[in-house]
């Protein structure tokens, strides 16, 4: 990690693409956990809100050399120093990185909907609410009470399920603890992955599983050359995926 290391906690994610089957369970879990709105007609993908999007990759070669993979992309929670690309552009301080945890948060009730952050993010990890959110009546009963719904005209994005961090902190406080154990705070996508392809933890803690995996020779980050210092690290044994993940001139 060469990015911002001012805090002793830098929550991050490792995703093993060799294990990912592209089943989309992570995306569904995310959608459900975070009350992400959807519409009856979602055919216009450039307006679909998908905090965690699963991209299809292939090596472009014909059979028998043809290879494919799936790449789940949550918000990459960029750790660039001094600012991630999206936060410092916001004119109203509606999005900030918490330097104690490294989490990049967004405050929808302060957002004016200028979409400058959307334009600044090269990973397309930010979404605008083009419509007022609506759920079928029965689903309204099943919304997550810890995540507020967003209104039309504001931006939203993956928060690494920051509400789960708050719940874990509350639990630790009740139990008289100051620090969280590894695995106490895990986003919904990581918890739901049936292939166990997603790992989550403190990248700044060299003993954590994610920190060890991040040092693997199979580890890489998306668009490394941009200098965004993402805290989502991918693993793959396939060279073509490494090459595809970063533009090579």
């Amino acid at each position, binding site marked *: 990690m060469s990015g911002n290391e001012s805090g002793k906690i830098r929550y991050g994610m490792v995703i093993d693409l060799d294990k990912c089957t592209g089943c989309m369970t992570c995306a569904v879990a995310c959608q459900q956990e975070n009350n992400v709105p959807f519409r009856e007609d979602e055919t216009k993908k450039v307006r679909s809100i998908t905090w965690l999007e699963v*991209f*299809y990759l292939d090596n472009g070669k014909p059979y028998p050399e043809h290879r494919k993979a799936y790449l789940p992309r949550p918000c990459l929670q960029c750790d660039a120093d001094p600012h991630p690309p999206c936060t410092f552009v*916001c004119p109203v301080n*509606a999005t900030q990185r918490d330097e104690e945890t490294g989490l990049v948060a967004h405050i929808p009730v302060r957002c004016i909907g*200028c979409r400058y952050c959307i*334009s600044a993010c*090269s990973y397309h990890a930010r979404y605008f609410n083009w419509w007022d959110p609506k759920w079928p009546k029965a689903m309204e009963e099943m919304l997550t009470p810890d995540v507020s719904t967003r209104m*039309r005209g504001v931006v939203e994005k993956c928060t690494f399920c920051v509400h789960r961090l708050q719940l874990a902190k509350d639990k630790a406080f009740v139990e008289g603890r100051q620090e969280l154990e590894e695995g106490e705070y895990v986003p919904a996508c990581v918890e739901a992955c049936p292939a166990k392809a997603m790992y989550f933890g403190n990248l700044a803690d060299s003993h954590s599983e994610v920190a060890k995996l991040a040092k693997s020779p199979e580890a890489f980050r998306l668009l490394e050359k*941009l200098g965004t210092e993402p805290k989502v690290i991918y693993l793959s044994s396939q060279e073509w995926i490494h090459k595809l993940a970063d533009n090579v001139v």
Partner: protein
Amino acid sequence: MDSALIPEGVKRCSFKAFCLWLLVIFGVIGFGIVGGFFVLWKGLNVTGLNDYFGFGLYITADLAIIALGAGAFFTGFLTYVIGKKELKDIINLAVVVGFICYTGAQLVLLLEIGQPIRGWFSFWHPNVHSMLTEVIFCITCYTIVLVIEFLPLILENRQLDKVPEFHYFSHNLHEIMVVFAATGTFLSFFHQGSLGGLYGVMFARPFAFRTGFFIWPWTFFLFVASAIASGPALTILVTMMVQGITRKKLVRRDAISLLAKVTGFLLAFYLVFKILDTWWWATQTAPSKGMSFGEFFKAPYGMWLLFAEIVVCGIIPAIILLTPKARNDDVLLIVACVLDCAGIVINRFVFTVQNLALPVMPFDHWEIYVPTWTEWAPTVALIAYGALIISLAYRYLPVFPRERELNPID
């Protein structure tokens, strides 16, 4: 019917003809209001914008008219601060054009943001690191300066001028106009630059990102230079247009020629740095971000845009404006000014739309942006709004101080 309001010693068209003209203008403005109402009522889903194109026609139009509105501050700077007295012929019109551009841009901004009711948050929760904060503050302050600069002209209306308080207030404002001209220059320098900085600081967007000086990317300085190289061109164009429509000589040719000459030099100055910037961007900045220059262009946003911006709408008008014989020819002067203004619109379009069309993730794809009528209608209405203000100002205010002298009534 309205002859009591028309300045003394000048001739205007009949009130009936003027009303018919206003009717056409109000028709276009009405169309824009309907489009704007739809956007506010239904939300931005009625536009062509999406999560790829967070910015589109509204922002392109805003940036373009703010750049073209630079004629006001720059002509004011030349007239009052540098002391080019011959430009007093044209300064009133330059201020009116600037007023139209800046107030129009703010009206469109109201539609552009997803939560217009929260617009005031920009002042209440300002992020000092954001270029957009600087833009919002400077544009608001400069619009106030433009209102102050426009005010003496309004108070010079034949009837208003009869009120002694208005007369003296207007006279005193004239006396201290150099202060406002200097303030306007300072504010404009920063917000024109910040609009460029807006793009240049996007370090995760290789098309827009630029290295720079201290906290300012090179686009900061290029946007200032391009604004002062095109704003006066719009002022000249509007002057020629008003002269053409009214079939009158309203400004002495030497004032227009002087402004055209200055514009030519500024355009040439800008182009030198624009070409250097493009070369550095193509050979250094883009590769450092993992992209090649060729990847930045794909139909319909092809290399032709760069050629049109720099050669057709840059080098050609610069040559015309720098050649005394050519800039003294009315037709060539109009061609040069139109090309100059078009060049700035292309530049702002490229930074706004082409920048976002480019897929940065290698497995991503190009997108094309198509604005809808709800975006076109308010944008076209902006032009009609400009025509309305200029028409009213020309009819009822002494916009052109030399009009009486150049068009004596027997």
